């Protein structure tokens, strides 16, 4: 699916040269937002470490601090207490060897899809010409080949989101952070994108942090699922998923899949995030 030309001047898929790979260490992090007279504890006592090449998914209800956690790792905001380190270096400014898919598509309305994708490399001082083939290939792989010259306003929400995903991949970053990247997609496209993402990850072994509202999606994609609860946002449990890869479409049938989904559901039930239908074996 993602058989695309390598990004010029960056690491080749499979084996990145030393120093471009990432490990993340989050140490007892708290984040408090202060506004006028209100204090919001977005995160409290969060500990998490992510190994290189690991695929970590975060699930949790709205407002539990998932996006905030992603921003802290990216150095786009800073912890009120505790520390975040990427590659053993404390994050005190925006880190750049990564690709981010934001919760909103964040496309520039004066650039067409192709040029929105190429913005990523232009801003890095690279020559966009060198990345055009790769951009077209990536756009094709997400089903946007006919829309390279379209402007954002001509795209549906799901298409905009896919353009944002391509922009996060164009420079082949060793770390990929995706904040509900499939949120605006229809169920079928979503399934396909999930399968493609797993293939991409298997081929390139990026470190991936994947935020989602979907328990299924988290279990199907991740090596580990971080389960969060709100007010104050903290990590309830981290669950290892030992399903063999590629998981593709089949993995839903495995008992391990059901077990993991059930466990997460139980946690949300216990936390009052989900309620009612307590006797149901598992939610739809």
């Amino acid at each position: 699916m993602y058989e695309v030309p390598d990004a010029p001047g960056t690491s080749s898929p499979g084996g990145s040269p030393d120093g471009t790979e990432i490990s993340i260490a989050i140490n007892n992090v708290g984040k408090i937002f202060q506004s006028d007279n209100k204090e919001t504890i977005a995160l409290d006592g969060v500990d998490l470490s992510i190994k290189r090449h690991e695929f970590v998914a975060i699930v949790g209800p709205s407002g539990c601090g998932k996006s905030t956690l992603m921003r802290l790792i990216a150095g786009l905001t800073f912890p009120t207490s505790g520390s975040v380190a990427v590659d053993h270096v404390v994050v005190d400014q925006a880190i750049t060897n990564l690709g981010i898919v934001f919760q909103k598509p964040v496309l520039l309305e004066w650039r067409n899809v192709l040029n929105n994708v190429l913005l990523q490399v232009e801003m890095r001082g690279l020559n966009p010409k060198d990345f055009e083939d790769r951009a077209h290939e990536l756009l094709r792989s997400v089903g946007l080949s006919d829309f390279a010259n379209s402007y954002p306003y001509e795209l549906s929400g799901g298409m905009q989101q896919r353009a944002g995903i391509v922009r996060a991949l164009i420079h082949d970053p060793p770390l990929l952070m995706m904040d509900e990247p499939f949120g605006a997609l229809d169920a079928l496209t979503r399934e396909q994108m999930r399968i493609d993402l797993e293939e991409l990850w298997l081929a390139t072994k990026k470190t991936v942090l994947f935020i989602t509202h979907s328990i299924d999606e988290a279990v199907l994609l991740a090596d580990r699922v971080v389960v969060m609860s709100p007010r104050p946002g903290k990590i309830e449990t981290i669950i290892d998923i030992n399903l063999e890869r590629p998981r593709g479409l089949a993995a839903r049938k495995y008992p391990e899949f059901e077990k993991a989904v059930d466990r997460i559901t139980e946690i949300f039930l216990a936390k009052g995030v989900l309620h009612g239908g307590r006797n149901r074996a598992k939610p739809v």
Partner: protein
Amino acid sequence: MSDNPQSPTALPNKPSQAWAQRLKGARQFLISFVILFLVWELAVHAFDVKSYLLPAPSLIWQEFSGRWRYVLDNTWVTTSEILVGYLIAIAVSVPLAVFVAYFPTMERTIYPIIVFLQIVPKIAIAPLFIIWFGFGFTPKILLVFLLSFFPIVVSSIAGFKSIDEETMELAKSTGASSWMIFRKIRLPHAMPAIFTGLKVAAALSSTAAVVAEFVASDKGLGYLLLRYNGDIETPMVFATIMVLSIVGLVVYYAVEYIEKISIPWHVSQRSDTSRFDVSS
């Protein structure tokens, strides 16, 4: 989507169709003016209106065609006052807006002053300018500058500041320099707002030039207006007002044209709202 043969506007992006559309607009515009002048002409004759009260269009034209050179010379004077004052206003206010948008201290100190000064009726200052700068070109340019300055600076500041958080975060995550972020993101983002200010300023600038000429001058359309008015040469007053309106229109539409070619992507410039229209 556009399989409706009855809707030629479904793909107005084709240049030929866009031009056809525009020509059609121009024709309708002309026709309504011709009708207006005809009714005017007939009414003046039918009710025997005195020419010093309301001259017929034919009389205006007759008077004007005898003195068009003189009027044109004065038109050029006023036009250059407008252009120079307007361009200086752009050159000063856009960079100032950048500073205010980028530096919080500037915003705290300068922005309140700008807002306060904006409330002062600038035209009331015109007589002072004559005392300070005399009779010539300078006080006119200053007034044009002053009236153009505020709308441009205020909307430019809004334009530079209104970038959403995620776009800036995306920019930061690329490690781009501030200059790069300014060039590729902030400035293009601010363009629609800047143009909004430019258009308001364009409309004000001709008023400013004429008012400045009213106060003290010996040339320009404002001067002509006062003189013809004093001599009760009403047809020439009308002719001068018409020329002045044309100058104002040309300046305004020039700005709008530049807007159209520099930010064709913006909502305000999309002629084709029917593009996603699937109803037939």
